[in-house]
């Protein structure tokens, strides 16, 4: 049964493919057999990922696109489909975590609001819209939206990110129901805190607040992406897969609160 995890002969498009999770997902899908179209608005980072994919023996190409611009997305997807004749898998991984600098809520500008919502939510919509008709015509497709545990929980001074990621989760559910009879599966991954850029020291302060006591390493998301990109997950759609070291269902008390109370007073 496990042979269903193989992605031999599949073509995947990874948005945000130059980032930490995007690179890890690109490589994991490639190692499972898929050829990879890397897209990102940062050409250097995207080209780097494409070169790494080639390094593990799969075909790869980089197309630049800003996911907040639907004309660029449509153009990128048309080129992606033309490249090897089809797209089987779309991973919406492009996103921005937070503003350049924290500021009082009432000072967030319209521009900042729209940038946060557009990158994290509209981007997933534009990319899915650009590929969905092609997938419906072929009666096959896998769409994986990288959401976040913060799409289900609040966080101080984090508005666009949390609201957009919550939107990604509900977008996932509605799109899954819409396309479920056409051989297309749409699922979300909700990562917790991963070390995606910079050194480990950046994450030292956060690690104690995660039940497992550490942040995730980017390659750890790979096998889950392969599972959801493959035929092995044919019976899951519209669902959210958490990978967060236990974070989602903590939060009711500090991690180090471990009560011991007798049942008899």
């Amino acid at each position, binding site marked *: *049964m*496990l*042979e*269903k*995890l*193989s*992605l*031999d002969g599949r073509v995947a498009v990874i948005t945000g493919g130059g980032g930490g999770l995007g690179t890890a997902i690109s490589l*994991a899908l490639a*190692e*499972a*057999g898929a050829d990879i179209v890397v897209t990102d608005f940062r050409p250097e980072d995207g080209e780097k990922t494409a070169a790494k994919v080639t390094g593990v023996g799969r075909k790869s190409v980089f197309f630049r696109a800003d996911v907040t611009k639907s004309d660029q997305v449509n153009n990128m997807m048309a080129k992606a489909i033309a490249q090897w004749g089809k797209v089987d898998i779309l991973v919406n991984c492009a996103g921005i975590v937070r503003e350049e600098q924290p500021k009082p809520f009432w000072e967030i500008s319209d521009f900042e609001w729209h940038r946060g919502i557009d990158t994290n939510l509209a981007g997933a919509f534009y990319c899915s819209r650009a590929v969905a008709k092609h997938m419906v015509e072929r009666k096959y497709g896998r769409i994986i939206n990288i959401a976040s545990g913060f799409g289900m929980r609040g966080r101080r001074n984090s508005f666009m990110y949390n609201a957009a990621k919550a939107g990604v989760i509900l977008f*996932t*559910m*509605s799109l*899954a*129901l819409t396309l*479920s*009879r056409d051989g297309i*599966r749409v699922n979300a991954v909700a990562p*917790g805190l991963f070390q995606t850029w910079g050194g480990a020291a950046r994450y030292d302060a956060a690690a104690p607040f995660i*039940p*497992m*006591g550490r942040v*995730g*390493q980017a390659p*750890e*998301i*790979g*096998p*889950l992406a*392969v*599972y959801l990109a*493959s035929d*092995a*997950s*044919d*019976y*899951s*759609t*519209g*669902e959210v*897969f*958490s*990978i*967060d*070291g*236990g974070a*989602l*269902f*903590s939060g009711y008390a500090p*991690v180090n609160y*471990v009560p011991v109370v007798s049942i008899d007073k």
Partner: protein
Amino acid sequence: MIPKEFSLSGKVAVVGGAGRSWLKELASYLGEAGADVVLFGQDEKQMAAAAQAVKTMGRRAITITTNVTSSREVEKMVAKAVGQFGQIDILVNSFDLQFAKPLVEVTVDEWNRVLATNLNAVFASAKAVGKHMLERKQGKIITISSGLAERGLPNSTAYCTSKGGVIQFTRALALEWARQNIRVNAIALGWMAEGAEVQDETWRNLLTHYIPVARFGQPDDLAAVLVYLASDASSFVTGSTFYVTGGLMAHG
């Protein structure tokens, strides 16, 4: 290519079944990934078939007849399993006793039997195997629950309660053992083929049209997700519930 992280080579899995448990299939997926398997429960015919399936794959398998609702018997089972294979890396709980009737007709005995099998047995086996896992500071525990842990269904109070309990048990234990390198996760199933609901043609057609992917689930739909949660592929996953319901959880 199957990602190498999914390998269970050198691992020992203990799989408990009661009721509708797909013991043979679950055991064979673990065996296929390279694990040796210990089967426990009371359905000896089902356990023997499961052990045979694992052996066919060139892995070792034993069966230990156990009343899964008895803590004492489960503890004895763990001692035997460790005695035989030296270690336990993975525990899979697949306890699924079902019935459906109006609440006012549910007897105390029926209520207790469902809670004992579906929920108390999860407690007993996680506790007994967990002691061993805590000593080794490693382990994976997988509970099998249902979409009915999160959704309601008429005439199903006992079942919904038990399966909801399994998921909350999973979350709470995941936090308790998160720093001991023991991962605790749940798989939640949807409408599976072979159940009572597929016997009746009217209900079968109704549900088939209702399920977003337009078919009942098959045990094979669990293969990869089971091995994912049992293996190093899920090294950063704990306290999670992976739904395999054909899209039901997205329904309004």
